[in-house]
């Protein structure tokens, strides 16, 4: 099990940006995208997200599992929403829909509106994932603490964030060791029960020792930090961060994007838009 942070985007255009830019850009982009249901505007946002992701230089081969997970999860969200809403999408009543057919048994209408809604959901999540993924792979692991601290997060919590990212690989190693040790004893956690409780209880022999060992082992870290005077006064960071002109331009672009979409949203111009082609297919 290797889930150590991989700096896959090292040397790329995005990795040379101030790490705060990646964090702020994602927040701005998420708040932009969640306001948009109009496929035409969303297409523009998807292009921006794709260009942004491309600038991180992350090899697809290295993250294809992550993308497969995203696609699976988004499909899940879209299908369940389509099935459970029973055709009532974004305030549209059933008699307003252009229906193709109804699903057997549950009778949910599949319409031009529901297909558009599904496409919009896909694009919204995929674009957010594209802008979010570079945070994991295009920020140098050592820059995480200073980035959060310079964003105004209290320095203790910023250091906590950095500690979290540092603990992940070692705890993953401990987990693998525990799994191997249990396997040597003949315990196969993969043979999970069928019920949720059965599945849960199969993980107890892994979860409990890894957790308790991690807590007991944390004493060394606590003592080391206390001995170095952690918490006595605000911490300074060796790594100095500074926005350059390019960073400012990119940041201004995302701010502008959010402002424009917010105005469009307040004036009702980001609502669900159904392409004529899909309406015509309904006959």
């Amino acid at each position, binding site marked *: *099990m290797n889930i150590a942070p991989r700096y896959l985007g090292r040397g790329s255009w995005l990795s040379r940006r101030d790490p705060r830019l990646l964090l702020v850009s994602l927040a701005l982009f998420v708040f932009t995208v969640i306001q948009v249901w109009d496929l035409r505007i969303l297409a523009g946002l998807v292009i921006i997200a794709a260009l942004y992701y491309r600038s991180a230089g992350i090899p697809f081969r290295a993250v294809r599992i992550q993308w497969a997970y995203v696609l699976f999860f988004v499909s899940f969200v879209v299908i369940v929403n389509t099935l459970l809403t029973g055709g009532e999408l974004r305030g549209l009543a059933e008699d307003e829909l252009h229906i193709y057919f109804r699903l057997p048994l549950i009778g949910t209408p599949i319409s031009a509106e529901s297909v558009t809604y599904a496409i919009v959901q896909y694009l919204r999540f995929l674009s957010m994932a594209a802008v979010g993924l570079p945070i994991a792979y295009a920020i140098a692991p050592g820059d995480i603490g200073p980035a959060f601290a310079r964003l105004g997060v209290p320095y203790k919590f910023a250091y906590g964030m950095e500690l979290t990212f540092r603990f992940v690989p070692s705890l993953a190693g401990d987990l693998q060791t525990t799994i191997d040790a249990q396997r040597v004893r003949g315990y196969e956690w993969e043979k999970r029960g069928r019920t949720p409780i059965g599945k849960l209880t199969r993980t107890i022999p892994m979860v409990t020792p890894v957790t308790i060992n991690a807590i007991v082992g944390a004493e060394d870290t606590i003592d080391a930090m206390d001995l170095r005077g952690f918490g006595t006064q605000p911490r300074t960071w060796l790594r100095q961060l500074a926005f350059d002109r390019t960073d400012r331009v990119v940041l201004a672009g995302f701010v502008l994007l959010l402002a424009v979409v917010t105005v469009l949203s307040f004036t009702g111009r980001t609502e669900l838009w159904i392409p004529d082609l899909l309406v015509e297919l309904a006959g």
Partner: protein
Amino acid sequence: MSTTYMESNRTDGTWDVTTRVIVYAAIGAALYGVLAFFSFVIPGTANVSVRPAFALVTFFGFAFGPIVGFFTGFVGNAIADQISGWGLLTSWNWSLANGFAGLLAGLFGVWLARTIPNRLLLAAVAAALAVVIGFLFVFTDIWLGTADDVSVAFTANYLPVITTNLIAAVILTPILVAAWDPLRDSMGR
């Protein structure tokens, strides 16, 4: 006798942000992110990945206080999402819901301590209440567009997640407390 900062930094106040709080919070969040690999999807639900490791959120909140619980839930869920590829902030409201559950587990652990003297039972009750109340925040999915209306948010998001998280939290939190308490006493914490 004057008290040095280092001594005052080791107090047990609920809202004190000490070195111990920061390290336990980081350990909790990292563990949640790592152990989230033990996850399985409940068929028929949207946006709900069931993680037995969720019990760490309520355990860390209960054992080490509301700040540790909030950090473990909020940052741990975000990191688990990031590691899986979903993205650090894509489901930020779910991360916050996890954080609130951890925070409430810590608060209920303190508030109900006199009412429920049995510590393991207290852990289970605090965890259960924290899950039921903390995850009400996932109804923000309606505003974010992930769920189209209240019935979808309730049926596809809230109900499955509290059901499965309740199972994980009510069973695992007391087990972890039972494993940790003797060690804590022997370490003099």
